[in-house]
């Protein structure tokens, strides 16, 4: 098969990533689970990311409300702001924004960490010492991000809606009860469930890409930086692609 170089590289990488992901499932299902390491990774990946995710979500909710307000007032539908903000945050902005922040923070850190371990040949040493490095490093980190991103998204949705509530109260007095009643009235299961489900895939994309880039980094310390960078870029793009697929699947339901 004759492909241009760039295409060949791209296809090669796609195949490598697919194989890497397949390896993750195969290794992850095998016994002898690294529970301790998984919990530790969950703590780092999830809990430590909460302040950053919550802050961006809060600001996003506040800003979105303030941006919408003049237009909604112009059309005389101020009362629809909670519904509109609620739907847009729960369905789209919450998951995407948190996933991107997550990719920036966790994807790069995983890529850099595994990259430096690879370059300093710690992974090889691990293998020699009888520990399965893939299981210990890749499976735990990827699983942690798969499990933690939905949690982060749910919490940052809540924070974001609270920010929106404060945003509305800059202009007019709206009761907390009424605000959340309006949001809940406008939401349905088919809004919430797909939004939560797709965050698992986002988490998987961030974890697996970070691990792959780190695990396959080369060329010394320079490669570490490149791995971290590539982890963020690729996982971010992948998040949008997954979102596109998710919205089409959700439309079918």
């Amino acid at each position: 098969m004759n492909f241009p170089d760039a295409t060949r590289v791209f296809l090669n990488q796609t195949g490598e990533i697919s194989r890497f992901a397949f390896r993750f499932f195969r290794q992850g299902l095998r016994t002898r689970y690294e529970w301790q390491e998984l919990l530790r990774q969950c703590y780092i990946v999830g809990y430590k990311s909460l302040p950053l995710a919550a802050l961006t979500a809060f600001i996003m909710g506040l800003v979105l409300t303030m941006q919408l307000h003049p237009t909604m007032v112009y059309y005389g539908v101020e009362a629809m702001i909670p519904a509109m903000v609620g739907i847009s945050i729960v369905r789209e902005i919450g998951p995407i924004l948190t996933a991107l922040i997550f990719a920036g923070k966790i994807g790069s850190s995983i890529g850099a960490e595994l990259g430096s371990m690879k370059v300093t040949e710690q992974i090889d040493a691990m293998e020699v010492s009888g520990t399965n490095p893939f299981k210990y490093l890749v499976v735990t980190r990827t699983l942690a991000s798969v499990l933690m991103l939905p949690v982060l998204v749910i919490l940052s949705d809540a924070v974001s809606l609270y920010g929106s509530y404060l945003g509305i109260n800059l202009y007019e007095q709206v009761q907390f009860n009424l605000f959340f009643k309006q949001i809940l009235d406008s939401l349905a299961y088919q809004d919430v469930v797909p939004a939560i489900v797709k965050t698992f895939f986002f988490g998987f994309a961030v974890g697996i890409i970070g691990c792959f880039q780190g695990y396959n980094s080369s060329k010394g310390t320079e490669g570490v930086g490149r791995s971290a960078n590539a982890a963020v870029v690729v996982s971010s793009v992948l998040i949008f692609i997954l979102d596109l697929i998710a919205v089409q699947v959700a439309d079918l339901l």
Partner: protein
Amino acid sequence: MKKQTANSVKLGLFVLSALCVLILTLYLLGKNRSLFGSSFIVKTHFKAVNGLIAGNNVRYGGITVGNVRQVVLLNDTVVEVRMDLDQKMRQILRASAKASLGTDGLVGNRVVNIVAGAGGAPLVQAGALLASDEEISTEKMLQTLHRTNENVAVISEELVMILHRISQSVQLTELLNDRSIPDNLKASLLHLRETTEKSSALMSEALLTLDAATKGRGTVATLMTDTAMALELRQAVGQVKTLETDIQRLTAGLEQVVASVNEDMNRGPGPLHTLMNDSLMAGQLRLTVDHAEKGVASFNRNMEALQHNFLLRGYFKKQEKAKKKANKPAE
């Protein structure tokens, strides 16, 4: 190790809080759609549901009490709507209630409104069929509106004609342009007001007089209230009546007299008849009068002569002097 436990606690807290938020959200959403509360089914039939779908709200008295579970086409004219209602509606909803279709707001979702019917009906059973009111369709409204519009068009055309004629009318324009009319009108109104004031004053005076009259003061009152005077008046009238009969008798007598005179004059043997009808006598009479005139003239001449007679002249002169004397002081 201790640090790791602390981290695990934090992680647990983190995960549990997110789980709580998720469960709470899903529960509240489910409660809104009444997925968890027990419910019972009530049915109703419509000719057309105009876009009602499963999941639309059912309202009773404006409060959401359930939702539409299913919309089924039963046959070519009947659409059956099956609704899930809250269990507590069993104690409220009566079999006489009526269902109708509505819209949430102006452009919102379709809703089924249930309205209470006549009281005293038994409480509704699960699976009962409620009576329904057909919706006033937009098409019908538009048809009516179309007719109204046509009428309005005709009316407006006629109005235009009328207005055209009004605007073309010279007299009316003059009338409208005449600046003096308002002044005149104002003056007229002023006068009218004065008149009214005066008449009202007059009326009040009249009222006062009437009041006084009824209370027994003044001439009118006496006239109206004095019974003795009435008696006298009646007597007077009676006398006047007798007087009248007397006069009548007198007149009759007079008539008789005149009649007899006439009779006499025309036919009777008396001197009057002779005097008036005998032409010979008339000639004689004229001769007599002639002679008498001549006699008087000659008598006058005699008297004149007598005045100038010396025997009697002194007496006439004395008389003239006395006359002059009497006239002088008056001047």
